[in-house]
Each structure stands twice: as C-alpha cells, then as structure tokens.
C-alpha cells in the first residue's frame, strides 16, 4: 500500500482529478497549500513598496492506493499536470503500513 502526495498548479486540479478517476482511484484528499521549489518566489511592487512573494499557491492531492495502481496513478498525474513550465510541481510516493475503514472496520487494501 502506498501514499501518493502530488503538489500541482491550482488550475490543474480538475484535470488531475478526472485522470485519477479514470484509472479507478476511489478517493483523495485535497488541500490548498503554499510553497516553493526551484521556482522560488518573485518580487512585486504595490503602491511604491516592494515586497517578495516566497510562497506560491499550490494544490496538494493525497491519495492512498494498492501497490498495483501506483505506477499508473503517477503517470496519470504527470500527464494531466504537466505544462512543461517551471512550477509544475512534484509527486512523492511513500509506504503506508496499514489502513482501516472506520464504518466497516475493513483493513488493508480493501479499506482504501
């Protein structure tokens, strides 16, 4: 069982959601986040005062899925979120020890 955390450009959320649904991903958690990678921030001027924007708005999608779906899901995310411009985001994969569905008390792959 793996967890995928994908940081993407906000306007790509709908495309990524659709792409994941198409390969049979059942659920996901979405958070509005801020951050920077190699893109860094930039400076802006408003009414004469200059300020830097270090953290840019992004969307984080988290989804936990059985091992056999992981590669497919990563490819789907990359394909949907790619603009080939700086700031497209990242995908992180980590191992999950276990999962439970509260309502039915199912455990493991059947719970995600």
């Amino acid at each position, binding site marked *: 069982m793996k967890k995928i955390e994908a940081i993407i*450009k*906000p*306007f790509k959320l*709908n495309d990524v959601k659709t792409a994941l649904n198409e390969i049979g991903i059942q659920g996901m958690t979405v958070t509005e986040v801020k951050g920077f990678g190699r893109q860094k921030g930039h400076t*802006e001027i*408003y009414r004469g005062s200059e300020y830097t924007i270090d953290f840019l*708005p992004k969307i984080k999608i988290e989804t936990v899925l059985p091992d056999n779906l992981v590669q497919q899901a990563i490819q789907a995310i990359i394909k949907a979120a790619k*603009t080939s411009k700086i700031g497209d985001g990242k995908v992180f994969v980590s191992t999950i020890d276990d999962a439970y569905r509260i309502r039915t008390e199912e455990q493991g792959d059947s719970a995600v």
Partner: protein
Amino acid sequence: MNHGVPSTSSSGVFPVKMITFKSVRLLLLLPMICAMLGIGATLANAADTGASLEQRVARLEQASQPAAPAINTGDNAWLLASCALVLMMTAPGLILFYGGLVRSKNVLSTMMHSLILMALVSTLWMLFGYSMAFAPGNAFVGNPFTYFLLNGVGGAPNPDYSATVPQQSFMLFQMMFAIITPALISGAVAERIRFKAYVLFTMLWVTVVYFPLCHMVWGAGGYFNWASNGCKIPVLDFAGGTVVHISSGVSALVCAIVLGRRSGYPQEPMMPHNVVLSLIGAGLLWVGWFGFNGGSALGAGALATSAFAATHFSAAAAALSWAATEWLHKGRPSVLGAASGMVAGLATVTPASGFISVPAAFCIGLAAGIICYFAVTKLKARFAYDDSLDVFGVHGIGSMTGMLMLGFLASAAVNPAIASTFHANGITVSLAGGKAQFFNQAIAVVFTAVYAGGASFILLKLVNKLVGLRVHIEDEDAGLDLTQHGERAYTE
C-alpha cells in the same frame, strides 16, 4: 449669591445693544453707498443721451426680441438630481450588485468593469458621443462633428429635446445612460475577459452600437423616434428598453457565447461570494431607477410622477412574482432571487414607464418576475451558455417583454402626447395601445436585437484578433484581480 445673578444678566445684555447700534449705523451706510454708485451710473448714462434716434430705436428693437426659451428651474433641478441618481446606479449600484455575485478572486476586476466606463464613456461622450447620438444627422446617426467636444452645448435649451432645461443638463443626463449600458454587459464577461480586450470592446461597442441606436430611438429625425418629424416607424421607448436594456442584454448573450464558459462551469459551483453586497447594490439600483425613468420625463411635472409610480409598482410586483415562482418551483424563495426580481421589474418597465397606468405597470412587473425567472433558470441551462450574472435573462428578456406589452398597454390618458403627436402621411395617428403599435414595438425589438447582437459578434471577433479576448486558463484560475490588476479585494 443673589448679587451675582443680575450683574451677569446685565453684562450679557449690554454688549448686544452695542452691536445692534453699530449694525444699524452700518445698515444706514449701505444705501448711501448704493445711492452714490447709482448717481455715478446715471451720470454715465447721461453722457450717452447724444445717441441718434436710429441708434435708440435699434436698441429698443434689440430689447424687444423674443426671449430665449425660458429655463424652468424646477425642471432643471429634477433633471440634475436624476443625473446623479442614474450615475449612482453604476457606482455604487451595479458595482456592488455585480461585485457581490462573483467569486472573491474576481471582485475587483468586476467592479473595475463598471468603474472604468465612468471615465471612458464620459470621455467619448465629450469628444463625439453626444454629437453622434443627439446632433442632427440622418435617420440612423447624428453628425459627430456638430457638438464635437460639446461645442455649443451650454445653458440654452435645445427645444428638439427639452425646451425648459439647459442643453448641458440634457447632455449630462443622457451621458449617465451611455455609461451604465455597456456596464450592464460586463456581467456576461465577468471572471474571464482580459482587461485590455474589455476596454477595447466597450469603446467600440458604445461607438458602433449605443450612440447610433440612441439617435434612432431618441435623436431628432431618428428612424424610430415617434416624437420627431423624420420618424419612419413610431416606437415607444420611454427610458431605454431598446437603447439600454435590449441592446446590452442581447450583446451580453453574444459575449457569453463568443467568449465561452468560465473554466469549470457548470460542473463546479460558482457561488456569489457576498450576497450582502449584491443586495445593497440592488437597493441602490431601485432608488437610482427613479432618476432613470422619472428623469426621462425631462421635467418635473405630472409625467415624471407617473413614470416614478410605474417604476416603483413594477419593481414591487416583480420581486413578489419572482419570489413566489421560485417558492413554488424550488420550495424556497431565495433572497438573491427576490432582488433579481426587483431588477427584472425595473428593467422591464423602463420602456413603458412614461406611458402606462399604475395597474398596467404592476401587470408588467408580475410578468417580468415570472418570465425572467424561467429565462435565468431554464433557458440558460437548456442552451448551456454562461451568462455569468444573467444580463440577458434579466435585462434582455425583461425589456423585450416590457416593449411588447407596452404596445397594448400604452395609454393616451397617462401620456396625452401619444394621442396626437405622430403624423404619418399627413394622418394623425394615435400610438396608444393596440395591435398596430404592438407590431411597431416588435419591429424595434427585433431590429435592436439583430443590430446589437450582430455588431457585438463582429466587434468581439475583431478584438480577439487584435488583443485576445480571454485570459489564460492559469490566470483565470488565479483570479482576474491578481492577474489583471495586481491586487486582491480581501487579505487572507
């Protein structure tokens, strides 16, 4: 203790007496100064007694020239107040109404769409707009050079339009209409148009659509102007059913279709970010509309009152009928629905307001609430266009309804002018309600819709070629406030 009281009172009275005495002396001095000045003037005149008889006769003749048309201060006061009321409909009326209806990332850009037109259209109006709309010309447009830079538009009345107010007042009043009309369209392009494209489009639109249409319906010699000699088809449009609401409503529909839907529409909910702002805006629109319709009487007489009354009762009826329809149809009457009903009732009664009785206005309002409700909920969903803030559904459909109903409801008892003014081939024709007038009204509705819609389509294609109509999807997602104007309405 006792001693102190009278001393205070006497010291209080004494200086007053002194002042009074001094002022009396001053007052006596004044007439003396005046008298001296008067003697001086008389002496100066006496030096002129040597003028010949011819000169004196010429002066007498000059003095007995027919006086310039008299300005009625009451009429002018009401017209100036109405100017301010109509401008208030744009800012802050429409600014708040539309600003509340969009998502929080697009508030400022939506408000700017109305705000910038106050500056932009006023400039065009001063340059050539007023002249294109109201200077003599042909049946379709006025000569743009006659009143170029408002040359000759001053304190003297223009009897073609209003014999009792300065032409400058009339010019100002009409300018406020020219400002709000393109501002109405902004509701259909909200949340996705490039600011550059918006500025270019609205400048072209008022020049190609608004100014000529205004001339046709209200200008001297206009094709549809029932009150003017050059008229070919007499059309009743008191305060802008065709010129303002159908032209902007249909253009809004064309804009919504050409521009395409907002990204995510209609799958994602796009809820108004602040209905409270919209309600304040709607209230200001209702109040301002008294100037819009009542002021269109161009005087402060009974006609202004009658238009005022028609406006009010139509808005009341439409708010009721929209809310009732929604209650029956959806199970709950929404607050924004009742406010939309108000605006629909106001837009619908606009062309009719100076020609109908109060019960007729109430009927028009009832119809407006029901018809516009279904235009906004059913028609829009059926054809899946994204008229974001329902400009077509409320203003376009509403005013078409009003124009057509007016064909039957116009009453010469309310507005005696329409009983006898229009002369066609030497025959005096009554414009008061009937089948013939209904068809005249229908022709104007179709003409306005086709002309405004067609011209908008061509202008949009042109602007798209020149600067591109839509923002990039990434900018649309981030919001127009940040990407077009570099600002946010609300800090996080």
